[in-house]
Every structure is written in structure tokens, then in C-alpha cells.
């Protein structure tokens, strides 16, 4: 079972994971990661923009690579776009497999790629000193690229 999508509205990970698990009968393990917008000081909102012709096709290519690399029964990958508030889920990746290592590693693999190589641009709305707030673009992080390098073998 393969379910790869972008979500324009808030989603509730629990409502995805139950049906996903049910759709992979006979699985030996399912691993799920949910990323949420952190409550960082002064951060009021996060906006994720994407480019339609690249972003979802890129996620499908990533899913293909995960299926090639690991022995999977199913893969769920849901990523938010649009404006999010702290505490809202951004991403949910769940992998079902016969054996735990494939499911855990597939989720780790997908997340490292989503965090550094997927076609998303992020900006944060932060409170400023004048009582208002401003948007700031978020630059790529060296840590994310280091995480990605783990898989380049």
C-alpha cells in the first residue's frame, strides 16, 4: 500500500496510521514518524511553499527509492504545505514491512531526504521588537545535509 501526498489543510496523523496499518495485512512491523512545528520562542507561524511540477513527483521518486532500498510492504508519506501554527503536524511517514529494521530504516531514509532534498521552501513568522511580526526565510541547515550523507553509499 502506497500513499504519497501533499496536504493543504491540517491533518491528524492518528487518522492516517490506523487505515495504513490495516491496509498492510500480515505486516511484521510498522514504524511511524510525525514531525510538528516546534514552539520556538517568538515563532507565530511557519509557511511551507512548494512547486507543483516538482514537489509531489519528487516525493514519489523518493518513495520509489525507499521501495528499492528496503523490503517494504507499504509506505505512507504525507507532507503539509501552506501556513502552519506551532503544534501542528508537518509530516507523517509510516513504513510497513515484514521485519522491523526495514520499516525503521525506511522512515529514517525518507525523513533525511525530505528534510534536505525535497522541494520545499520554508519561512517563519517571528515577533519583532516593535510588537509586530515579520517573515524570515529559513536557510538549509548543515545538519540536514550531514544526515543525508549517511545514505550515500
Amino acid at each position, binding site marked *: 500500500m502506497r500513499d504519497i501526498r501533499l496536504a493543504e489543510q491540517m491533518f491528524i496523523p492518528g487518522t492516517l496510521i490506523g487505515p495504513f496499518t490495516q491496509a498492510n495485512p500480515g505486516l511484521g512491523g510498522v514504524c511511524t514518524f510525525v514531525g510538528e512545528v516546534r514552539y520556538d520562542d517568538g515563532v507565530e507561524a511557519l509557511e511551507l511553499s512548494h512547486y507543483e*511540477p516538482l514537489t509531489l513527483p519528487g516525493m514519489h521518486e523518493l518513495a520509489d527509492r525507499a521501495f528499492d532500498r528496503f523490503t517494504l510492504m507499504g509506505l505512507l508519506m504525507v507532507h503539509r504545505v501552506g501556513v502552519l501554527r506551532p503544534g501542528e503536524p508537518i509530516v507523517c511517514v509510516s513504513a510497513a514491512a515484514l521485519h522491523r529494521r526495514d520499516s525503521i530504516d525506511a522512515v529514517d531514509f525518507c525523513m533525511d531526504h525530505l528534510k534536505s532534498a525535497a522541494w520545499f521552501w520554508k519561512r517563519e513568522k517571528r515577533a519583532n521588537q516593535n510588537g509586530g511580526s515579520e517573515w524570515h526565510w*529559513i536557510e538549509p541547515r548543515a545538519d540536514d545535509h550531514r544526515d543525508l550523507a549517511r545514505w550515500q553509499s
Partner: protein
Amino acid sequence: MIRFVYLGKLADAAGKSESQFASNSGDIDWPDILALLDDHVREGLSDAVRDKRVKVALNGEVLADREGIVARHGDEVAFLPPVSGG
């Protein structure tokens, strides 16, 4: 018509998320594109786009050699700054 799409902070640099140009004069190449950005979108925008980390997609395909681009009537050219990840 040829459409330009600006992603991420290039949308701020352009002051808009996309622009359209009449393509009566035929195909446009990389120097034409840089000139259009400066003359018809915002002065100095070509400098932001010249940044080596900016990738260019033509009709949804990222170009390995952006300077070899040739855009025609009906094409969409996207300017993609480094991604910040999901």
C-alpha cells in the same frame, strides 16, 4: 506567452510569485532571461538568480545546464533557490 515562476525567497526578491511575458520575439535564452528579470521584473533580480545555488526548471524539469536554456511560447521557467527542507 512565457511564464516565470519565483520560488522561496526569490519571490520576495521579485516582489511577486510569477510573471508572464509575450513571446512574439521568439525563443529566449539565458542572457535574454537575465535581461527580462532586470528590465521588466525588478532591477538587480538577475544577480539573485545568477547565484550558483539557484536551479532552473523548464516545464517542471530541472536543467543540468541552466545557461543552455531555450524557452519558447507556452513554456514555464521556474527559479528555484536552495530548498529549506520539509
